[in-house]
């Protein structure tokens, strides 16, 4: 199973920086793993713990929240709030028996296309090492069969 495992990662990207960085990475023809599916958010401060938990509950192998560099938030402190919320979700996942490394916060500037590509690679490798989300329907079915 692990040989063919292609992680499914959801990235909540701030429109002012990380989303632009993802766009720039594409424009620069930088290659990065296609495992990361981007969700545009107006600010990472909009990302609620429930968004992340439900994403994991619904079977995503990993979730990253990508905001502006610290001090550069368009809304002043949305990315600081997001960082705290990511840490909160990590604590909850730990309590619930899921690896907290499946959720991670990144800070990427709008001009940093290579930074986004690197973050996507790093997250994909982390999740590949962890293996599939034990909550994905596919994994649960295979566990039952075993």
């Amino acid at each position, binding site marked *: 199973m692990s040989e063919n495992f292609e992680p499914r990662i959801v990235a909540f990207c701030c429109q002012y920086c990380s989303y632009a960085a993802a766009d720039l990475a594409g424009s620069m023809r930088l290659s990065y793993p296609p495992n990361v599916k981007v969700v545009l958010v107006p600010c990472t401060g909009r990302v609620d713990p*429930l968004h992340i*938990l439900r994403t*994991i*509950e619904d079977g995503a192998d990993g979730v990253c929240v990508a905001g502006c560099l610290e001090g550069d938030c368009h809304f002043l402190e949305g990315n600081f709030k997001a960082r705290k919320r990511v840490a909160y979700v990590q604590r*909850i996942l730990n*309590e*619930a028996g899921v690896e907290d490394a499946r959720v991670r916060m990144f800070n990427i500037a709008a001009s940093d296309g290579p930074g986004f590509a690197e973050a996507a690679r790093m997250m994909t490798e982390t999740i590949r090492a962890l293996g599939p989300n*034990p*909550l994905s329907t596919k994994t649960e079915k295979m566990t039952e069969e075993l």
Partner: protein
Amino acid sequence: MIIAERKPIKELLEMLAGHDKVLLVGCKGCVTVCNAGGVKEVGVLASALRIARRRQGRPIEIDEMTLDRQCEPEFISWLEEPIREKGYTAIMSAACSVGPQYIAERFDKVAVMPALNTKFIGGTLEHEVWAEFCRACGNCGIHNFGGLCPITRCSKGLLHGPCAGSSGGKCEVRPEVDCIWHLIYTRMKNLGQVEKLKALKPAKDWSSYWSGGVRRVVREDLTL
């Protein structure tokens, strides 16, 4: 308001052992304000419990509902239909401990369990930080202390001045806590009423706190 906080997931999972269909009930009163049991916290907790149970290989169905208040019987009756229709075997209440008790008294066929630990009657110190301000002794005398309560806010509950552990206006029990007797003295000094603190007072009558069984308040003029 009543300040509460969520119990650890592990403890909640132990309570839920043997139950596969559960209603998680939040409250839009105090526990919403202190972010322990409102609509959002109920959503997060339900998700966390579902995740944990799936990890254990014993999935659980958890529905969510948040009542306007759980400390009023008329709001508790809103649970009658879902309990009758959906066949829940347990109700988990994310309210102060009044909520689960009302639910337990109303519905005798379902297990009832608390999702929160009720901590104290308190106020907000800063965003998302709460502290205890009142111990509900039932006989308020804070006018004798410049409007500040030494029973609750002195770590030792001293009523006749500070202990020797007051240092630089802070308490020896926990340095981040203000010595309330320091604040009381400063305030009485500013009010020009330090002499009032020197007056001998009889021992506090605690009968309004402990004795006589369950305490009760009745407004005869408003009863139906």
